[in-house]
């Protein structure tokens, strides 16, 4: 009667690896098909040379940009580093403020009543509209730009943390309360851990929002960064630079999201269903 029912966590290793490869290969394949179509459309003249640059040229420019500064004044590495720093500062600030705020709002009614109207009023304002105020309050350095990013990034943190903690299993709350835990202790020991999966979803959305707001934030004032590079590409009528900028933003964003997912599986692995 006492046989353990430890469920098989994963399928046998070989079939798992095979499955992963298949998925990976099909992704790569579809990407290559996309690039091929793009190249052909340009080379065969379906779209004017002025309107779209073929990927072969874009790749050449991209490789060049890794170690040459012209025409925007810095190498691609410098731009990536500058933008990443900016986005991560804004993102971390958003997490530090947004997650606890969302959790508290979901647990303590007075906090909710106090914060909710303000949150609802601020939330629909596009971050770009805050640029003049950001300059007035914070200047034109990284603080002001990180603030623009923070505005976009903290919304998913708050919302997801709020929903996460609201979904706490009421039975677990009773478990803690009957052992004599105070409301605060129950919040920390049951509410917060219970919300962790939702918090991580919020973090991913938040990082995404931070990254997509990059271009807007760098409009404030920037001499480096991927958004800045795109602006320069525009002023110099260099669509190839613009596309390099966009692709770099896309690729780097995907990379950061991947890293975050890996971190999540480390921390929240006990909850993977």
């Amino acid at each position, binding site marked *: 009667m006492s046989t353990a029912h430890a*469920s098989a966590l994963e399928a046998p290793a070989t079939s798992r690896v095979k499955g992963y490869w298949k998925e990976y290969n099909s992704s790569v394949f579809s990407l290559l098909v996309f690039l091929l179509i793009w190249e052909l459309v340009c080379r065969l003249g379906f779209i004017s040379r002025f309107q779209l640059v073929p990927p072969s040229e874009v790749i050449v420019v991209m490789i060049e940009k890794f170690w040459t500064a012209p025409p925007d004044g810095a190498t691609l590495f410098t731009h990536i580093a500058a933008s990443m720093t900016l986005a991560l500062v804004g993102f971390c600030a958003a997490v530090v403020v947004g997650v606890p705020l969302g959790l508290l709002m979901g647990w303590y009614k007075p906090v909710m009543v106090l914060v909710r109207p303000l949150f609802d009023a601020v939330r629909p304002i596009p971050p770009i509209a805050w640029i003049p105020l950001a300059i007035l309050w914070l200047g034109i350095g990284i603080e002001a730009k990180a603030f623009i990013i923070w505005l976009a990034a903290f919304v998913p943190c708050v919302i997801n943390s709020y929903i996460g903690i609201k979904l706490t299993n009421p039975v677990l709350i*009773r*478990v803690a*309360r009957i*052992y004599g835990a105070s409301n605060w202790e129950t919040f920390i020991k049951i509410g917060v851990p219970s919300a*962790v999966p939702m918090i991580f979803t919020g973090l991913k959305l938040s990082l995404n929002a931070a990254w997509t707001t990059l271009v807007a934030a760098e409009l404030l004032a920037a001499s480096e960064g991927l958004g800045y590079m795109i602006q320069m590409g525009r002023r110099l009528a260099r669509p190839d630079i613009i596309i390099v900028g966009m692709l770099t933003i896309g690729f780097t964003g995907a990379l950061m999201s991947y890293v975050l997912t890996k971190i999540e599986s480390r921390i929240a692995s006990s909850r993977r269903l």
Partner: protein
Amino acid sequence: MTNQQLSENYHRGKEVKVSVTDLTKKYDDLLVLNDISFNIYKGEFLCIVGPTGCGKTTFLNCLSRFIPTTRGDILVDGQPADPTHHDMAFVFQEVSTIPWLSVEDNIRFGLKVKRRPPDEVERRTEQMLELVGLKKFRSYFPRQLSASMEQRVVIARNFALNPDILLMDEPYGQLDLKLRYYLEDELIRIWQEIGCTVLFITHNIEEAVYLAQRVLVLGQKPATIKEEIIVDLPRPRNFADPAFVKIRDHVTDAIRWW
């Protein structure tokens, strides 16, 4: 011996752990619990049975101070019941393992909330792991366990506190028969080992007679204690034993009469 004598013998000389007086619960105009008074003795295994919907769960919620009573006193060791001062434990119908804690951390949870000294926490955790036979699975997580294993974790967590009162609300209702018999035996074994006070609620009469030293029959809303039946049978009990059947039928009749 007559029932009356049996009863008197039973109550003589026992130390009262929990004393319930005039417990009344009203939701607006709906009277659910009506003037319930009884004692639970130290180390006793008491079962409460009644028809479905008679207010058993409300009764338990009042006892555990989860909902306020309209009137009446609940005293534990002579003091008004309070989860922060008394050690109360509750086993729910639903699975209540904490999903992000391992088996051993689940067991430690109650002890930690009660701020017991670390060596006591470890000692008791080890004891319970041994007692419920989950030592091999100490670092497993609830999602890796079967339902019955999870309930054992919950039992272990609660017994680890050696609570003033352990309240159990139809904990085996969701499980199949074989499993249920097995867990009932487990429960008795652990209770005998630890020796804490247990209040077990069920609508399953056989289960009540199998487990309890004393059975209280709760009537329909507004609920009162209709009858008290002493179960003076040796353990392990046998469902087929005529004495068992007699008591079982007695309880059944008591419930049916309304």
